[in-house]
Protein backbone atom coordinates (compact mmCIF):
# COMPACT_ATOMS: atom_id res chain seq x y z
CA UNK A 1 0.00 0.00 0.00
CA UNK A 2 1.29 3.45 -0.93
CA UNK A 3 2.28 5.93 1.79
CA UNK A 4 -0.20 8.48 0.41
CA UNK A 5 -3.01 5.91 0.60
CA UNK A 6 -2.05 4.98 4.16
CA UNK A 7 -2.21 8.65 5.16
CA UNK A 8 -5.63 8.95 3.54
CA UNK A 9 -6.96 5.82 5.25
CA UNK A 10 -5.43 6.76 8.61
CA UNK A 11 -7.31 10.05 8.40
CA UNK A 12 -10.52 8.08 7.78
CA UNK A 13 -9.85 5.92 10.86
CA UNK A 14 -9.26 8.95 13.09
CA UNK A 15 -12.39 10.71 11.77
CA UNK A 16 -14.38 7.55 12.40
CA UNK A 17 -13.09 7.39 15.99
CA UNK A 18 -14.64 10.80 16.60
CA UNK A 19 -17.99 9.75 15.15
CA UNK A 20 -18.52 6.33 16.78
CA UNK A 21 -18.94 5.84 20.55
CA UNK A 22 -15.31 4.79 20.77
CA UNK A 23 -14.78 6.51 24.14
CA UNK A 24 -17.02 3.87 25.75
CA UNK A 25 -14.94 1.10 24.18
CA UNK A 26 -11.70 2.74 25.26
CA UNK A 27 -12.98 2.97 28.86
CA UNK A 28 -14.14 -0.66 28.88
CA UNK A 29 -10.84 -1.86 27.40
CA UNK A 30 -9.04 0.30 29.99
CA UNK A 31 -11.03 -1.26 32.86
CA UNK A 32 -10.28 -4.78 31.60
CA UNK A 33 -6.61 -3.95 31.22
CA UNK A 34 -6.45 -2.46 34.75
CA UNK A 35 -7.74 -5.74 36.20
CA UNK A 36 -5.33 -7.76 34.07
CA UNK A 37 -2.29 -5.61 34.77
CA UNK A 38 -3.03 -5.50 38.52
CA UNK A 39 -3.06 -9.29 38.61
CA UNK A 40 0.07 -9.36 36.50
CA UNK A 41 1.88 -7.04 38.92
CA UNK A 42 0.88 -9.16 41.92
CA UNK A 43 2.10 -12.27 40.10
CA UNK A 44 5.35 -10.59 39.04
CA UNK A 45 6.03 -9.46 42.60
CA UNK A 46 5.25 -12.84 44.14
CA UNK A 47 7.50 -14.45 41.55
CA UNK A 48 10.18 -11.94 42.49
CA UNK A 49 9.78 -12.80 46.19
CA UNK A 50 9.65 -16.46 45.27
CA UNK A 51 12.82 -16.27 43.22
CA UNK A 52 14.59 -14.67 46.17
CA UNK A 53 13.26 -17.43 48.36
CA UNK A 54 14.32 -20.01 45.81
CA UNK A 55 17.85 -18.63 45.97
CA UNK A 56 17.80 -19.38 49.69
CA UNK A 57 16.50 -22.93 49.29
CA UNK A 58 19.37 -25.24 50.05
CA UNK A 59 19.89 -28.96 50.37
CA UNK A 60 22.30 -30.13 53.00
CA UNK A 61 23.95 -33.47 52.17
CA UNK A 62 25.67 -35.18 55.11
CA UNK A 63 28.72 -37.34 54.46
CA UNK A 64 29.43 -40.70 56.00
CA UNK A 65 31.91 -40.34 58.90
CA UNK A 66 35.64 -40.34 58.31
CA UNK A 67 35.48 -40.12 54.54
CA UNK A 68 38.97 -39.61 52.97
CA UNK A 69 39.53 -36.15 51.53
CA UNK A 70 39.89 -37.40 47.93
CA UNK A 71 36.52 -39.17 48.27
CA UNK A 72 35.00 -35.93 49.64
CA UNK A 73 36.28 -34.07 46.55
CA UNK A 74 34.85 -36.77 44.28
CA UNK A 75 31.43 -36.56 45.93
CA UNK A 76 31.51 -32.74 45.70
CA UNK A 77 32.28 -32.96 41.98
CA UNK A 78 29.51 -35.51 41.47
CA UNK A 79 26.95 -33.24 43.19
CA UNK A 80 28.05 -30.28 41.10
CA UNK A 81 27.30 -32.36 38.02
CA UNK A 82 23.65 -32.97 38.98
CA UNK A 83 21.24 -30.91 36.80
CA UNK A 84 19.63 -28.07 38.76
CA UNK A 85 22.62 -27.56 41.09
CA UNK A 86 23.87 -23.96 41.13
CA UNK A 87 26.75 -24.36 43.58
CA UNK A 88 28.20 -26.76 46.12
CA UNK A 89 30.05 -25.75 49.25
CA UNK A 90 31.89 -28.10 51.64
CA UNK A 91 31.18 -27.59 55.35
CA UNK A 92 33.77 -29.22 57.61
CA UNK A 93 33.15 -30.47 61.14
CA UNK A 94 34.57 -27.33 62.77
CA UNK A 95 32.49 -24.99 60.62
CA UNK A 96 29.38 -27.05 61.33
CA UNK A 97 30.00 -26.69 65.04
CA UNK A 98 30.51 -22.93 64.73
CA UNK A 99 27.32 -22.65 62.78
CA UNK A 100 25.40 -24.61 65.40
CA UNK A 101 26.87 -22.35 68.06
CA UNK A 102 25.58 -19.30 66.22
CA UNK A 103 22.15 -20.82 65.87
CA UNK A 104 21.98 -21.71 69.56
CA UNK A 105 23.14 -18.24 70.63
CA UNK A 106 23.17 -18.00 74.43
CA UNK A 107 22.44 -21.73 74.77
CA UNK A 108 25.65 -22.67 72.97
CA UNK A 109 27.66 -22.87 76.18
CA UNK A 110 27.25 -26.65 76.47
CA UNK A 111 29.08 -27.20 73.17
CA UNK A 112 32.35 -26.36 74.89
CA UNK A 113 31.82 -29.31 77.25
CA UNK A 114 31.50 -31.87 74.44
CA UNK A 115 34.33 -34.44 74.53
CA UNK A 116 34.54 -34.43 70.71
CA UNK A 117 32.80 -32.80 67.74
CA UNK A 118 29.81 -35.05 66.93
CA UNK A 119 28.71 -33.19 63.79
CA UNK A 120 29.26 -34.78 60.37
CA UNK A 121 30.89 -33.14 57.41
CA UNK A 122 28.40 -31.93 54.81
CA UNK A 123 27.82 -30.13 51.53
CA UNK A 124 25.55 -27.07 51.21
CA UNK A 125 23.89 -27.36 47.80
CA UNK A 126 22.30 -24.26 46.21
CA UNK A 127 19.72 -24.78 43.47
CA UNK A 128 18.99 -22.98 40.23
CA UNK A 129 15.21 -23.44 40.80
CA UNK A 130 13.24 -24.52 43.84
CA UNK A 131 11.09 -27.01 41.92
CA UNK A 132 14.10 -29.26 41.17
CA UNK A 133 14.80 -29.81 44.89
CA UNK A 134 13.22 -33.29 44.97
CA UNK A 135 15.23 -34.55 41.99
CA UNK A 136 18.53 -33.08 43.23
CA UNK A 137 17.97 -34.48 46.74
CA UNK A 138 17.21 -37.97 45.38
CA UNK A 139 20.20 -37.94 43.02
CA UNK A 140 22.52 -36.74 45.83
CA UNK A 141 21.31 -39.44 48.22
CA UNK A 142 22.22 -42.11 45.68
CA UNK A 143 25.88 -41.06 45.65
CA UNK A 144 28.45 -43.16 47.52
CA UNK A 145 29.65 -41.32 50.61
CA UNK A 146 26.36 -39.54 51.28
CA UNK A 147 24.60 -40.65 54.43
CA UNK A 148 21.58 -38.34 54.44
CA UNK A 149 20.09 -35.24 52.82
CA UNK A 150 17.93 -32.56 54.47
CA UNK A 151 15.82 -29.83 52.93
CA UNK A 152 12.37 -28.33 53.30
CA UNK A 153 10.43 -30.08 50.54
CA UNK A 154 6.95 -29.04 51.67
CA UNK A 155 7.85 -25.36 51.78
CA UNK A 156 9.38 -25.56 48.33
CA UNK A 157 6.39 -27.44 46.93
CA UNK A 158 3.97 -24.94 48.45
CA UNK A 159 5.82 -21.97 46.99
CA UNK A 160 5.99 -23.52 43.55
CA UNK A 161 2.29 -24.45 43.80
CA UNK A 162 1.21 -20.93 44.80
CA UNK A 163 3.17 -19.37 41.96
CA UNK A 164 1.72 -21.83 39.46
CA UNK A 165 -1.85 -21.06 40.59
CA UNK A 166 -1.23 -17.33 40.52
CA UNK A 167 0.19 -17.38 37.00
CA UNK A 168 -2.62 -19.72 35.94
CA UNK A 169 -5.23 -17.25 37.25
CA UNK A 170 -3.38 -14.39 35.53
CA UNK A 171 -3.35 -16.38 32.29
CA UNK A 172 -7.08 -17.10 32.60
CA UNK A 173 -7.82 -13.41 33.22
CA UNK A 174 -5.66 -12.49 30.21
CA UNK A 175 -7.70 -14.90 28.05
CA UNK A 176 -11.00 -13.50 29.35
CA UNK A 177 -9.84 -9.93 28.81
CA UNK A 178 -8.67 -10.82 25.32
CA UNK A 179 -12.09 -12.25 24.41
CA UNK A 180 -14.20 -9.64 26.26
CA UNK A 181 -12.28 -6.55 25.21
CA UNK A 182 -12.02 -7.84 21.62
CA UNK A 183 -15.80 -8.19 21.47
CA UNK A 184 -16.26 -4.64 22.80
CA UNK A 185 -13.88 -3.28 20.17
CA UNK A 186 -15.62 -5.43 17.57
CA UNK A 187 -19.00 -3.89 18.43
CA UNK A 188 -17.64 -0.37 18.00
CA UNK A 189 -16.06 -1.20 14.66
CA UNK A 190 -19.33 -2.84 13.61
CA UNK A 191 -21.03 0.55 13.97
CA UNK A 192 -18.44 2.13 11.69
CA UNK A 193 -18.82 -0.68 9.18
CA UNK A 194 -22.60 -0.23 9.25
CA UNK A 195 -22.35 3.54 8.82
CA UNK A 196 -20.04 3.11 5.85
CA UNK A 197 -21.70 0.05 4.28
CA UNK A 198 -22.71 1.89 1.10
CA UNK A 199 -19.22 3.25 0.63
CA UNK A 200 -17.79 -0.23 1.21
CA UNK A 201 -20.15 -1.73 -1.36
CA UNK A 202 -19.01 0.81 -3.96
CA UNK A 203 -15.37 0.24 -3.02
CA UNK A 204 -15.79 -3.47 -3.64
CA UNK A 205 -17.56 -2.86 -6.96
CA UNK A 206 -14.87 -0.59 -8.33
CA UNK A 207 -12.08 -2.96 -7.38
CA UNK A 208 -10.65 -1.82 -4.06
CA UNK A 209 -8.44 -4.48 -2.51
CA UNK A 210 -9.35 -6.16 0.78
CA UNK A 211 -6.43 -4.50 2.54
CA UNK A 212 -7.56 -1.07 1.31
CA UNK A 213 -11.09 -1.66 2.67
CA UNK A 214 -9.93 -3.26 5.93
CA UNK A 215 -7.08 -0.90 6.79
CA UNK A 216 -9.08 1.97 8.39
CA UNK A 217 -11.20 -0.45 10.45
CA UNK A 218 -8.20 -2.40 11.68
CA UNK A 219 -6.37 0.83 12.46
CA UNK A 220 -9.41 2.13 14.36
CA UNK A 221 -9.49 -1.09 16.42
CA UNK A 222 -5.77 -0.91 17.17
CA UNK A 223 -6.07 2.75 18.22
CA UNK A 224 -8.94 1.88 20.60
CA UNK A 225 -6.90 -1.02 22.04
CA UNK A 226 -3.77 1.09 22.40
CA UNK A 227 -5.59 4.04 24.03
CA UNK A 228 -7.36 1.67 26.46
CA UNK A 229 -4.12 -0.13 27.32
CA UNK A 230 -2.17 3.13 27.52
CA UNK A 231 -4.71 4.65 29.92
CA UNK A 232 -4.68 1.49 32.04
CA UNK A 233 -0.87 1.44 32.07
CA UNK A 234 -0.74 5.07 33.26
CA UNK A 235 -3.30 4.47 36.04
CA UNK A 236 -1.74 1.19 37.21
CA UNK A 237 1.78 2.63 37.04
CA UNK A 238 0.79 5.60 39.19
CA UNK A 239 -1.10 3.34 41.62
CA UNK A 240 1.84 0.95 41.83
CA UNK A 241 4.24 3.74 42.74
CA UNK A 242 1.89 4.62 45.62
CA UNK A 243 1.73 0.98 46.75
CA UNK A 244 5.53 0.67 46.61
CA UNK A 245 5.91 3.79 48.79
CA UNK A 246 3.34 2.46 51.26
CA UNK A 247 5.00 -0.98 51.47
CA UNK A 248 8.45 0.55 51.99
CA UNK A 249 7.07 2.53 54.93
CA UNK A 250 5.01 -0.21 56.63
CA UNK A 251 7.03 -3.30 55.67
CA UNK A 252 10.53 -2.24 54.60
CA UNK A 253 11.80 -5.86 54.76
CA UNK A 254 9.48 -6.82 51.86
CA UNK A 255 11.15 -6.79 48.49
CA UNK A 256 9.03 -5.49 45.59
CA UNK A 257 9.88 -4.96 41.93
CA UNK A 258 10.86 -1.32 41.41
CA UNK A 259 13.43 -1.33 38.61
CA UNK A 260 12.26 0.78 35.69
CA UNK A 261 13.41 -1.63 32.98
CA UNK A 262 11.05 -4.37 34.21
CA UNK A 263 8.17 -1.94 34.73
CA UNK A 264 8.83 -0.46 31.27
CA UNK A 265 8.70 -3.96 29.82
CA UNK A 266 5.35 -4.50 31.58
CA UNK A 267 3.98 -1.30 30.00
CA UNK A 268 5.18 -2.43 26.55
CA UNK A 269 3.54 -5.85 27.09
CA UNK A 270 0.27 -4.11 28.03
CA UNK A 271 0.37 -1.87 24.96
CA UNK A 272 1.05 -4.86 22.72
CA UNK A 273 -1.81 -6.71 24.40
CA UNK A 274 -4.09 -3.72 23.76
CA UNK A 275 -3.04 -3.61 20.12
CA UNK A 276 -3.75 -7.35 19.78
CA UNK A 277 -7.19 -6.82 21.39
CA UNK A 278 -7.93 -4.09 18.81
CA UNK A 279 -6.63 -6.20 15.96
CA UNK A 280 -8.75 -9.22 16.92
CA UNK A 281 -11.82 -7.05 17.62
CA UNK A 282 -11.65 -5.26 14.28
CA UNK A 283 -11.06 -8.51 12.45
CA UNK A 284 -14.13 -10.13 14.02
CA UNK A 285 -16.42 -7.33 12.86
CA UNK A 286 -14.89 -6.78 9.45
CA UNK A 287 -14.63 -10.44 8.54
CA UNK A 288 -18.18 -11.14 9.62
CA UNK A 289 -19.84 -8.03 8.22
CA UNK A 290 -17.75 -7.03 5.23
CA UNK A 291 -17.15 -10.47 3.75
CA UNK A 292 -14.34 -8.95 1.74
Amino acid at each position, binding site marked *: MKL*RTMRLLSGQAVRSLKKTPSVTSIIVVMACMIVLSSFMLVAVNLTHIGSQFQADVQIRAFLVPDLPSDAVDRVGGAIQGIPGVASVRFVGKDEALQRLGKQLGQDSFFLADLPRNPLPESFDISLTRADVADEVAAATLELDGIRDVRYAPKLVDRLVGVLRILWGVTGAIAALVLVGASLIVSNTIKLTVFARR*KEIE*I*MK*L*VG*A*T*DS*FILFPFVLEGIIIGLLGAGGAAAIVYAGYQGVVKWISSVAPFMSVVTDSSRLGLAVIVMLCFGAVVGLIGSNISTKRYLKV
Partner: protein
Amino acid sequence: MVNMYGVYKVYPGNVEALRGVNLNIDKGDFVFIVGPSGSGKSTLLSMIYRGAVPTRGHVLVSGRNIARLRWHEVPMLRRRIGVIFQDYKLLPDRSVYDNVSFALEVIEASPKEIEKKVPQALSMVGLAHKASAMPEELAGGEQQRVAIARAIVNDPLILVADEPTGNLDPDTALDIMDLLCDINLRGTTVVMATHNQVIVDTMRKRVVQLERGMVVRDERWGAYCYEA
Protein backbone atom coordinates in the same frame (compact mmCIF):
# COMPACT_ATOMS: atom_id res chain seq x y z
CA MET B 1 -15.29 -11.42 -23.58
CA VAL B 2 -17.93 -13.23 -21.48
CA ASN B 3 -18.59 -16.95 -21.85
CA MET B 4 -21.08 -18.94 -19.80
CA TYR B 5 -21.27 -22.72 -20.06
CA GLY B 6 -24.09 -24.68 -18.41
CA VAL B 7 -24.35 -22.15 -15.57
CA TYR B 8 -26.58 -22.97 -12.61
CA LYS B 9 -27.06 -20.78 -9.56
CA VAL B 10 -28.96 -22.13 -6.58
CA TYR B 11 -29.46 -19.80 -3.60
CA PRO B 12 -30.04 -21.05 -0.03
CA GLY B 13 -33.54 -22.48 0.33
CA ASN B 14 -33.05 -24.33 -2.98
CA VAL B 15 -34.05 -21.25 -5.00
CA GLU B 16 -32.85 -21.81 -8.56
CA ALA B 17 -31.93 -18.45 -10.14
CA LEU B 18 -30.16 -19.81 -13.21
CA ARG B 19 -30.63 -23.20 -14.86
CA GLY B 20 -28.10 -24.28 -17.45
CA VAL B 21 -27.37 -20.90 -19.04
CA ASN B 22 -25.08 -20.91 -22.10
CA LEU B 23 -24.10 -17.48 -23.38
CA ASN B 24 -21.26 -15.92 -25.34
CA ILE B 25 -20.74 -12.15 -25.46
CA ASP B 26 -18.02 -10.83 -27.77
CA LYS B 27 -15.87 -7.76 -27.37
CA GLY B 28 -17.78 -4.63 -28.37
CA ASP B 29 -21.22 -6.29 -28.15
CA PHE B 30 -24.26 -4.45 -26.82
CA VAL B 31 -26.56 -7.00 -25.19
CA PHE B 32 -29.98 -6.50 -23.59
CA ILE B 33 -30.96 -9.10 -20.99
CA VAL B 34 -34.74 -9.15 -20.75
CA GLY B 35 -37.27 -11.24 -18.89
CA PRO B 36 -39.79 -11.01 -16.08
CA SER B 37 -38.84 -10.23 -12.48
CA GLY B 38 -37.18 -13.23 -10.86
CA SER B 39 -36.03 -14.70 -14.16
CA GLY B 40 -32.37 -14.46 -13.14
CA LYS B 41 -31.24 -11.27 -14.94
CA SER B 42 -29.48 -9.69 -11.97
CA THR B 43 -27.86 -12.98 -10.98
CA LEU B 44 -26.52 -13.39 -14.51
CA LEU B 45 -25.11 -9.85 -14.48
CA SER B 46 -23.58 -10.25 -11.03
CA MET B 47 -21.60 -13.25 -12.27
CA ILE B 48 -19.82 -11.03 -14.77
CA TYR B 49 -18.32 -8.89 -11.97
CA ARG B 50 -18.13 -11.89 -9.63
CA GLY B 51 -20.84 -10.64 -7.31
CA ALA B 52 -21.96 -14.28 -7.42
CA VAL B 53 -20.28 -17.52 -8.45
CA PRO B 54 -22.05 -20.37 -10.25
CA THR B 55 -23.22 -23.39 -8.27
CA ARG B 56 -22.47 -25.47 -11.37
CA GLY B 57 -21.00 -24.64 -14.76
CA HIS B 58 -18.36 -22.11 -15.76
CA VAL B 59 -18.28 -18.35 -16.27
CA LEU B 60 -15.26 -16.97 -18.13
CA VAL B 61 -14.61 -13.24 -18.22
CA SER B 62 -11.69 -12.22 -20.46
CA GLY B 63 -10.73 -15.89 -20.50
CA ARG B 64 -10.54 -16.21 -16.70
CA ASN B 65 -12.86 -18.59 -14.85
CA ILE B 66 -14.41 -16.38 -12.18
CA ALA B 67 -14.98 -19.28 -9.78
CA ARG B 68 -11.26 -20.05 -9.82
CA LEU B 69 -10.09 -16.52 -9.20
CA ARG B 70 -8.08 -16.14 -6.04
CA TRP B 71 -9.47 -13.68 -3.53
CA HIS B 72 -6.84 -11.05 -4.30
CA GLU B 73 -7.55 -11.38 -8.05
CA VAL B 74 -11.22 -10.38 -7.71
CA PRO B 75 -10.48 -6.62 -7.28
CA MET B 76 -8.28 -6.77 -10.40
CA LEU B 77 -11.20 -8.23 -12.38
CA ARG B 78 -13.56 -5.55 -11.09
CA ARG B 79 -11.20 -2.78 -12.15
CA ARG B 80 -11.83 -3.87 -15.74
CA ILE B 81 -15.62 -3.88 -15.33
CA GLY B 82 -17.86 -0.88 -14.75
CA VAL B 83 -21.17 -1.47 -12.98
CA ILE B 84 -24.26 0.76 -12.78
CA PHE B 85 -27.53 0.16 -10.98
CA GLN B 86 -31.09 1.43 -10.96
CA ASP B 87 -30.51 3.22 -7.63
CA TYR B 88 -27.25 4.92 -8.80
CA LYS B 89 -25.39 4.06 -5.56
CA LEU B 90 -23.79 7.49 -5.17
CA LEU B 91 -22.22 8.71 -1.94
CA PRO B 92 -24.57 11.50 -0.77
CA ASP B 93 -21.92 13.34 1.26
CA ARG B 94 -19.51 13.73 -1.65
CA SER B 95 -19.63 16.03 -4.64
CA VAL B 96 -20.07 14.80 -8.22
CA TYR B 97 -16.31 15.12 -8.79
CA ASP B 98 -15.52 13.24 -5.56
CA ASN B 99 -17.98 10.46 -6.37
CA VAL B 100 -16.18 9.85 -9.65
CA SER B 101 -12.66 10.30 -8.27
CA PHE B 102 -13.55 7.87 -5.45
CA ALA B 103 -13.41 5.01 -7.98
CA LEU B 104 -9.82 5.94 -8.80
CA GLU B 105 -8.76 6.75 -5.24
CA VAL B 106 -9.68 3.29 -3.97
CA ILE B 107 -7.53 1.64 -6.63
CA GLU B 108 -4.68 3.94 -5.57
CA ALA B 109 -4.45 5.91 -8.83
CA SER B 110 -2.01 8.83 -8.75
CA PRO B 111 -3.39 12.37 -8.16
CA LYS B 112 -2.17 13.26 -11.66
CA GLU B 113 -4.20 10.43 -13.18
CA ILE B 114 -7.26 11.39 -11.14
CA GLU B 115 -6.99 15.03 -12.23
CA LYS B 116 -6.81 13.93 -15.85
CA LYS B 117 -9.43 11.18 -15.94
CA VAL B 118 -12.26 12.57 -13.79
CA PRO B 119 -12.92 15.70 -15.92
CA GLN B 120 -12.76 13.50 -19.04
CA ALA B 121 -15.38 11.13 -17.64
CA LEU B 122 -17.61 14.01 -16.52
CA SER B 123 -17.33 15.63 -19.97
CA MET B 124 -18.23 12.31 -21.57
CA VAL B 125 -21.51 12.17 -19.59
CA GLY B 126 -22.13 15.91 -20.04
CA LEU B 127 -21.73 16.92 -16.42
CA ALA B 128 -18.44 18.81 -16.42
CA HIS B 129 -20.27 21.95 -15.35
CA LYS B 130 -21.76 20.22 -12.28
CA ALA B 131 -18.54 18.78 -10.87
CA SER B 132 -18.92 20.56 -7.55
CA ALA B 133 -22.66 19.83 -7.12
CA MET B 134 -23.87 17.38 -4.50
CA PRO B 135 -25.91 14.33 -5.65
CA GLU B 136 -29.10 15.58 -3.94
CA GLU B 137 -28.97 18.72 -6.10
CA LEU B 138 -29.16 16.62 -9.28
CA ALA B 139 -32.11 15.13 -11.15
CA GLY B 140 -32.42 11.34 -11.45
CA GLY B 141 -30.98 11.25 -14.96
CA GLU B 142 -28.03 13.37 -13.91
CA GLN B 143 -27.36 11.13 -10.92
CA GLN B 144 -27.32 8.12 -13.24
CA ARG B 145 -24.86 10.00 -15.47
CA VAL B 146 -22.58 10.47 -12.45
CA ALA B 147 -22.83 6.73 -11.79
CA ILE B 148 -21.93 6.06 -15.43
CA ALA B 149 -18.98 8.46 -15.20
CA ARG B 150 -17.78 6.58 -12.15
CA ALA B 151 -18.18 3.27 -13.97
CA ILE B 152 -16.23 4.34 -17.06
CA VAL B 153 -13.56 6.53 -15.45
CA ASN B 154 -11.19 3.57 -15.26
CA ASP B 155 -11.72 2.65 -18.94
CA PRO B 156 -13.45 -0.70 -18.35
CA LEU B 157 -13.64 -3.47 -20.93
CA ILE B 158 -17.22 -4.26 -19.96
CA LEU B 159 -20.02 -2.06 -18.66
CA VAL B 160 -22.65 -3.99 -16.69
CA ALA B 161 -25.93 -2.08 -16.26
CA ASP B 162 -28.66 -3.50 -14.06
CA GLU B 163 -31.89 -1.69 -15.05
CA PRO B 164 -30.17 1.71 -15.27
CA THR B 165 -33.30 3.44 -16.63
CA GLY B 166 -35.70 1.88 -14.14
CA ASN B 167 -36.13 5.09 -12.13
CA LEU B 168 -36.11 7.52 -15.04
CA ASP B 169 -38.78 9.13 -17.22
CA PRO B 170 -38.87 7.99 -20.90
CA ASP B 171 -36.97 10.98 -22.32
CA THR B 172 -34.24 10.85 -19.70
CA ALA B 173 -34.05 7.07 -20.19
CA LEU B 174 -33.39 7.59 -23.90
CA ASP B 175 -30.67 10.14 -23.09
CA ILE B 176 -29.00 7.56 -20.86
CA MET B 177 -29.27 4.98 -23.65
CA ASP B 178 -27.62 7.40 -26.10
CA LEU B 179 -24.80 7.73 -23.62
CA LEU B 180 -24.44 3.96 -23.26
CA CYS B 181 -24.40 3.65 -27.06
CA ASP B 182 -21.58 6.21 -27.27
CA ILE B 183 -19.63 4.25 -24.68
CA ASN B 184 -20.27 1.05 -26.66
CA LEU B 185 -19.10 2.70 -29.88
CA ARG B 186 -15.78 3.49 -28.20
CA GLY B 187 -15.24 -0.28 -27.83
CA THR B 188 -16.67 -1.05 -24.39
CA THR B 189 -18.87 -4.14 -24.23
CA VAL B 190 -22.25 -3.25 -22.68
CA VAL B 191 -24.48 -5.82 -20.98
CA MET B 192 -27.74 -4.33 -19.74
CA ALA B 193 -30.72 -5.83 -17.96
CA THR B 194 -33.95 -3.96 -18.59
CA HIS B 195 -37.74 -4.04 -18.48
CA ASN B 196 -38.02 -1.07 -20.82
CA GLN B 197 -39.71 -2.33 -23.98
CA VAL B 198 -39.47 1.00 -25.81
CA ILE B 199 -35.72 1.18 -25.43
CA VAL B 200 -35.14 -2.41 -26.55
CA ASP B 201 -37.49 -2.11 -29.51
CA THR B 202 -36.02 1.26 -30.55
CA MET B 203 -32.36 0.32 -30.35
CA ARG B 204 -32.56 -3.10 -32.00
CA LYS B 205 -29.49 -4.61 -30.35
CA ARG B 206 -28.83 -8.21 -29.36
CA VAL B 207 -31.53 -9.47 -27.00
CA VAL B 208 -31.14 -12.41 -24.59
CA GLN B 209 -34.40 -13.40 -22.93
CA LEU B 210 -34.45 -15.30 -19.64
CA GLU B 211 -37.37 -17.17 -18.16
CA ARG B 212 -37.24 -19.11 -14.92
CA GLY B 213 -33.43 -19.03 -15.06
CA MET B 214 -33.11 -20.33 -18.62
CA VAL B 215 -32.19 -18.57 -21.87
CA VAL B 216 -35.29 -18.92 -24.03
CA ARG B 217 -34.26 -16.50 -26.80
CA ASP B 218 -31.03 -15.00 -28.11
CA GLU B 219 -31.54 -12.73 -31.15
CA ARG B 220 -28.92 -10.64 -32.91
CA TRP B 221 -31.19 -7.61 -33.59
CA GLY B 222 -34.08 -8.50 -31.37
CA ALA B 223 -37.15 -6.84 -29.91
CA TYR B 224 -38.45 -6.96 -26.35
CA CYS B 225 -41.01 -9.66 -27.19
CA TYR B 226 -41.12 -12.52 -29.64
CA GLU B 227 -41.91 -11.29 -33.09
CA ALA B 228 -44.10 -13.37 -35.33
